[in-house]
């Protein structure tokens, strides 16, 4: 029985590899998009701020599964003749999903930088890009790590949903192996263990880093929640030229 199983290990390993690729793509792309979304929240143009707010608010108000079904089934219809592979659709869906959460964390970390830093940068004649590039983001980046890790951790788990659109990633591989071996219990315990081995140390790292930051007096923004979007009107940080 266990011997049977060994021959299926490569299939599970391949699935784990697919999950890894998917997650790396979505983590990189989602972080970049999230950075843009978060920075848009500091714009001096109200329209830009509202676009960012609506994007964030909407994506966080619907299930990831719906986003994935949409990017897989509906999105290709918008581009005549396009067929997206499951990997591409999954990566797009996951990227959009995490970018909304990362955008909120970026906004929170920008808000954690004292107002005087914005004013000092402006008083020296820096424009928007210079101000954020040299003064604000280096300071914001320090506190962004723990909530960012939290989001990536959740994303790794959530990536299992991409199996629903048929991508043979780790969870789907487990399902296939479970069916062919007639040992679904073993298969899913094994799959769960792989996720655990990746996520558990990541969570520990996040908490360790957060403690260290707090010990040195930083105000760490907590992970964005579904209701805190209502906390305040989006707006630029400085009462300058609005």
């Amino acid at each position, binding site marked *: 029985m266990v011997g049977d199983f060994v021959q299926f290990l490569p299939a599970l390993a391949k699935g784990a590899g697919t999950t890894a690729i998917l997650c790396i793509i979505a983590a990189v792309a989602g972080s970049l998009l999230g950075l843009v979304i978060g920075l848009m929240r500091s714009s001096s143009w109200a329209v830009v701020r509202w676009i960012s707010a609506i994007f964030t608010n909407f994506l966080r108000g619907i299930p990831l599964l719906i986003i994935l079904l949409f990017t897989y089934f509906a999105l290709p219809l918008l581009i005549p003749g396009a067929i997206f592979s499951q990997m591409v659709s999954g990566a797009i869906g996951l990227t959009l999903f995490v970018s909304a959460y990362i955008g909120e964390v970026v906004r929170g970390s920008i808000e954690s930088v*004292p107002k*005087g*830093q914005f*004013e*000092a*940068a*402006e*008083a*020296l*004649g*820096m*424009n928007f890009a*210079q101000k954020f590039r*040299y*003064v604000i983001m*280096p*300071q914001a980046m*320090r506190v962004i790590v723990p909530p960012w890790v939290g989001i990536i951790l959740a994303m790794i788990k959530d990536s299992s949903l991409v199996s629903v659109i048929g991508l043979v990633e780790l969870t789907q591989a487990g399902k296939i192996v479970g069916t062919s071996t007639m040992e679904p219990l073993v298969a899913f315990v094994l799959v769960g263990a792989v996720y655990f081995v990746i996520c558990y140390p990541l969570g520990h790292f996040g908490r360790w880093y957060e403690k260290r930051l707090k010990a040195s007096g930083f105000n760490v923004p907590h992970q964005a929640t579904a209701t805190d979007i209502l906390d305040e009107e989006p707006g630029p940080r*400085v*009462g*300058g*030229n*609005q």
Partner: protein
Amino acid sequence: MITVKDLHKSYGKLEVLKGISCEIDASQVVCVIGPSGSGKSTFLRCLNLLESITSGTVVINGHDLGDRKLNTSAVRQDVGMVFQQFNLFPHMKVLENIMIAPVKVAKKPKAVTREKALELLDKVGLASKADVYPSALSGGQQQRVAIARALAMDPTVMLFDEPTSALDPETVGDVLQVMKRLAEEGMTMVVVSHEMGFAREVADRVIFMDGGVIVEDGNPAEIFDNPKEARTQAFLSRVS
């Protein structure tokens, strides 16, 4: 150098500045005094556009701040500002703090800027601190670095927003010393301050503000020894 005509500033319904007019000449050192809430800091912040102007005109060194096509960055490069809370960039060493704006904003060559920055540090008496982070400095030292940072842009006007209010008493003297030397070198300075001794000794002119208007404007001896307005008298008797 600076011309202000009928400057108004409101936050919603709250009018903080109710028509300020004054002329400040080149090389003049002007101290703005007044009770808290009198609008003196807001007035100062309007001069480099940290606050937008509700109505009226402000012209600094040829820049009309009400002009729609105004290059905000150019004005700010021309007008140095020193804050009450220093606002040094905590993630940069002292020298980097001074060099960042000349190099990145004014696009000056690094080597030249570096020399200039070291000179300025020497001038404010902190030549040995070039390579430390701001957090390793006392408040007074940080404020002197902040002055050097502003001077590194070669401003024609320097604004000081209560530069000594957040300092421990024993470090105030060094900062005032640096400001005094700057005044003697002919810098145009507008200083919002509670340091009456400094105002009396260094300023060419003292403006007393209360309730969003200029109540009295004259040379220090007149204002301090012989104030004409009742509000000025009341304020001075409270602070001295």
